[in-house]
């Protein structure tokens, strides 16, 4: 079992896939488009495509990687539609204040969450995607390469760029 799921999941009902990957696609969508309502759209559009394509899906690896790939494409499509790449960090921070008011977010961590969002908003969408999939969601570098349809070397370069930029931006939290 990997973060992207197992190979033998083709017979799983759509409700199980939705239950298993909705949060992950929402996280990926939010980290790429920087807007929680648009991230909800990413989830919805992703699973519409999953439902439509599932009957002809041919297992060539973890089904999660396939779901992530659809989610990534949807998020990029929405990002292009908005023509906001990179995200305005100020906008990103405002979104975080809203998110921080929800039960999932500890109010005491609001400032930190804002800083994390703002720092990530400085990165390009492909770099944010690589960092989200590898470092937040725990996919392997090989799995991230499959999802993003790039080489593992390209993933490593994006990860190095993301980690170094975030390290510089967040140094006060890393002591």
């Amino acid at each position, binding site marked *: 079992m990997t973060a992207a799921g197992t190979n033998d999941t083709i017979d799983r009902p*759509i*409700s199980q896939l*939705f239950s298993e990957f*909705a949060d992950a696609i929402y*996280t990926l969508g939010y980290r790429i488009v920087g807007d*929680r309502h648009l991230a909800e759209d990413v989830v919805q559009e992703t699973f519409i495509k999953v439902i439509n394509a599932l009957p002809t899906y041919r297992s060539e690896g973890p089904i999660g990687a396939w779901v992530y790939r659809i989610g990534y494409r949807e998020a990029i499509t929405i990002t292009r539609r908005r023509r906001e790449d990179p995200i305005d960090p100020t906008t990103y921070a405002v979104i975080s204040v809203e998110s921080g008011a929800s039960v*999932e977010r500890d109010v005491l961590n609001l400032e930190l969450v804002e800083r994390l969002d703002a720092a990530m908003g400085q990165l390009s969408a492909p770099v944010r995607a690589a960092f989200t999939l590898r470092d*937040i969601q725990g996919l392997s570098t090989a799995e991230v390469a499959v999802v993003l349809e790039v080489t593992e070397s390209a993933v490593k370069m994006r990860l190095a760029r993301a*980690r170094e930029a975030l390290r510089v931006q967040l140094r006060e939290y890393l002591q």
Partner: protein
Amino acid sequence: MTLSCDDLETMLPEFLDGSISEGQESAAAEHLATCEACTAELNELEGVTKLYREHGTMHLPDDARNRIAESLGITD
């Protein structure tokens, strides 16, 4: 193999991913044992991942989850 700080910096992505070769890993460990600057950089890079793992995951709000599930015809 003796590494410089620049050598180590180019190896850090693989080091962090655990995809480094055994020989390179022992050389990196040897360098880190005596270099405070590189150790600090490595700790900070690991700290970035830790911060986002702990605080960067989002949860689809229940109202959105229910609305989307309903629109997709998904029932538990």
